[in-house]
């Protein structure tokens, strides 16, 4: 509750016309951004505990009595996806990606994940291997100052049938270069 209250108060500040239109001084704009960042990070604890409860429930319902409480996942958010950076997907050879759909209807989405290598396998919760494509991160993004990321590629796949106000999880793992080696399907044509 204190996390949510902090977020409510922060969004209360963000109703100010300056915060909406960007007519505040630069230092105030940075303060607004910091408050939002702290609020979102604080509420990540709330989403993590909710998603763990949901997944344990689904686990419990699937396997009758036993509850697998040892399966507590960290469900981290990556706020720098907008500059194609995410420590979890860049530095782990195996990770899961949970997509929560906030809409009231089923939706599909092309997902882009920053990764450091060019050979991965993605499976969905039914064990189906997803079709993927890897693309190099544009050089202008790679060269952005202050972007500290070792991602070289974006892994793209098509997430379908994401349930309304629900979620789906995908398991992503790096393959050794020999396994099912797929030379990334791109052939840059310089002009």
């Amino acid at each position, binding site marked *: 509750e204190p996390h949510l209250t902090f977020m409510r108060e922060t969004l209360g500040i963000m109703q100010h016309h300056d915060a909406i239109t960007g007519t505040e001084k*630069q230092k105030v704009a940075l303060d607004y951004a910091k408050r939002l960042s702290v609020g979102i990070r604080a509420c990540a604890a709330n989403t993590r505990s909710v998603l763990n409860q949901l997944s344990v429930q689904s686990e419990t319902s699937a396997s009758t009595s036993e509850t697998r409480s040892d399966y507590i996942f960290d469900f981290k958010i990556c706020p720098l996806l907008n500059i194609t950076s995410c420590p979890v997907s860049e530095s782990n050879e195996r990770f899961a990606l949970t997509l929560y759909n906030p809409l009231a209807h089923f*939706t599909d989405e*092309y997902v882009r994940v920053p990764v450091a290598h060019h050979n991965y396998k993605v499976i969905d919760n039914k064990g189906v291997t997803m079709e993927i494509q890897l*693309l190099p991160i544009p*050089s*202008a993004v790679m060269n952005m100052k*202050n972007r500290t990321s070792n991602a070289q590629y974006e892994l*793209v796949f098509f997430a379908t049938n994401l349930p309304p106000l629900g979620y789906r999880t995908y398991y992503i793992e790096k393959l050794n270069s020999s396994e099912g080696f797929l030379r990334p399907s791109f052939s840059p*044509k310089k002009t």
Partner: protein
Amino acid sequence: SSLTVIGNEYIKLGFDTNGFLSEVTADGLTRIVSQEFLYYEGAKGNNAEFLNRSSGAYIFRPNKNKIHFVANQVDIEVYRGEIVQEVHQKFNDWISQVVRVYRSKSYAEFEWLIGPIPIDDDVGKEVITRFNSGIESAGIFYTDSNGREMIKRQRNRRDTWNVKLNEEVSGNYYPVTTKITLEDTTARMAILTDRAQGGSSLQDGALELMVHRRLLHDDAFGVGEALNETEHGKGLIARGKHLFFFGQSGTRKGISLKATERIVQIESLLPTWKFFSNMKSYNAEEWR
């Protein structure tokens, strides 16, 4: 053909030998459509009286409507795959863009990256992206009202009074929260934004949106500093997306481009929330 083409069965984009978008095929139409980045010089007023204010946080006022092209030659790299096809464009040292078409999607995504905007010439710059088409829009275009209904706009006019515009450019700029469109009896062009931007249609068939600004003079409306945002001493870099729709105007077989735009607008403005979990200790079977 000398065009570099990416796309799918719904939409194809052709890029000319200079690396610019030059042709679009969609919804049974093939039209000349170009996209380019330009920038207005920010006006530097003396702020003494109301009519001579600088361009700043509260005001968009180009200096004598001077506009500059940012490039006449664009380096491109083309990547084609089963899921997505992309053209990576580099306009200059501070403007680049990725144009992509995903499989089975009827629109194109323009992901622009702009900044740091150079100011060593001591000129404030207001960067726009502009899409030009042959659509005979007769000065009429539409901008959304906070993501809901579309409001009809007419160049150099106002609905409720006889306006005399002192600023032909900024006097025709309107707030675009999610969408700006124009059409004629046959074709329609729409651009969805991922954030609120200023936008207009200053020539028939053309739509422009302001994507980034860096100004050097306060506009004397109270904030007391120029809109010259920096990060680690360098100008701010802005990155964002525009979704580009093109097709026949009106409704055919019960489907209208507007309806598709509406669905995509909701899905792109309320995308999935992404949560990453380290799986060091679980293999795929255990995870399942």
